[in-house]
């Protein structure tokens, strides 16, 4: 199993029946492919839809129906369309059960940085600040390191997305939960030791005596 598949499958275990979930662009999008059988999860596309489905049949695309990246999608029976204020009302009003986002850095306070690298890349925050400030649960899905450099750090050097701590961090090495006491190592990837996780992490990690392995079936 490659790193992305491991992360995405582990994140999918956080899904619960009936949840409204928003998936960030990139790796988080793939979580939609791993909804446990028999479970109904509503996916919100922040450009104004709940109930988005897969790509439409060739030649039957509707130019007025795309995902937040502008790619053609379908709408499932029971889908709902709305304007941008309502879409973010769902997010900011606490009606969104979970969001899954990528990250550039997460720090020991659980603060996420994922929207700019000063002087280098300024894509803008899009909906990220609203999602991290408003969703009931914020799950960060990201690689544990970037070119060998830890992305989980003591204090974010990059501009924060929100001062509200995220709920969970899932990487190819570990599952980590920010708490009031600090970052807690909840699970380690199959075959990865606690020491290996610590070595790849630049923030302090609290770990119980026995850290179970991630299950990503």
């Amino acid at each position, binding site marked *: 199993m490659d790193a992305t598949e491991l992360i995405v499958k582990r994140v999918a275990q956080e899904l619960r029946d009936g949840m409204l979930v928003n998936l960030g662009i990139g790796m988080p999008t793939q979580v939609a492919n791993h909804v446990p059988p028999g479970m109904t999860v509503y996916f919100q596309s922040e*450009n104004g839809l709940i109930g988005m489905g897969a790509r439409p049949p060739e030649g039957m695309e509707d130019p007025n129906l795309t995902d937040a990246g502008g790619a053609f999608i379908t709408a499932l029976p029971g889908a709902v369309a709305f304007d941008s204020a309502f879409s973010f009302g769902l997010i900011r009003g606490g009606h969104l059960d979970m969001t899954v986002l990528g990250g550039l850095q997460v720090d020991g306070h659980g603060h996420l940085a994922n929207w*700019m690298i000063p002087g280098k890349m300024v894509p803008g925050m899009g909906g990220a600040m609203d999602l991290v400030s408003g969703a009931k649960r914020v799950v960060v899905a990201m690689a544990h390191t970037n070119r060998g450099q830890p992305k989980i750090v003591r204090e974010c050097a990059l501009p924060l*997305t929100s001062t509200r701590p995220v709920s969970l961090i899932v990487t190819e090495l570990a599952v980590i939960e920010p708490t009031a006491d600090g970052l807690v190592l909840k699970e380690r990837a199959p075959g990865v030791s606690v020491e290996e996780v610590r070595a790849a992490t630049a923030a302090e990690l609290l770990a119980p005596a026995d850290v179970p392995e991630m299950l990503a079936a």
Partner: protein
Amino acid sequence: MKQAIEVEDAIAPIHDGASVMFGGFMGVGTPLRLVDEIVRQQKRDLTIIGNDTARPGQAIGKLIDADCVRRVVTSHIGTNPVTQKKMIAGEIEVELVPQGTLAECIRAAGYGLGGVLTPTGLGTLAEDGKPTLELDGRIFLVERPIAADFALIFAHRADYNGNLDFTLTARNFNPLMAMAATTVIVEPQFFVPVGVLPPDGVAVPGLLVDTLVARDH
């Protein structure tokens, strides 16, 4: 009953230096004929307000390419390297606003509200010297209403009175902007007789619409 006018005449009143809102999300729900006409008439120094600047050569991305723009108020420029390049070169000014805040601030302008109180952006670069307000022990960012001289709207259908409906993800910012600008210019996909749109399906009453653009001949 309103008269539909040609796209040249609809765009002519937009003066250099005007502030112009554009409906749309990655070009979906953007009035593309109006955008092309702004380029053709070589408008200059515009402040444009919209969710994103799409991609180079696409939707309002064309305004960036054609040097029509002095300032952009938007949530995301990550898909448009030309916007980023011109921003870094100091040729255009970019104000990045969280997407939910952008939607609420546009709505606030149209609804006569003094501003928006939100936790989104607090303690981040988006705070940027803005006032904060403590209310019952919680702190909120005070964001200003966002109004414009013109709103350029893409509607699904317009009846002869200018009542508008929208469809699927082409709705996004359009109905909000129709409330927030001095002059509202609409490019509908279809015209229908008065009475075809059910009262419950109209998102923008015709009296908010100043200009209807005739269909493409």
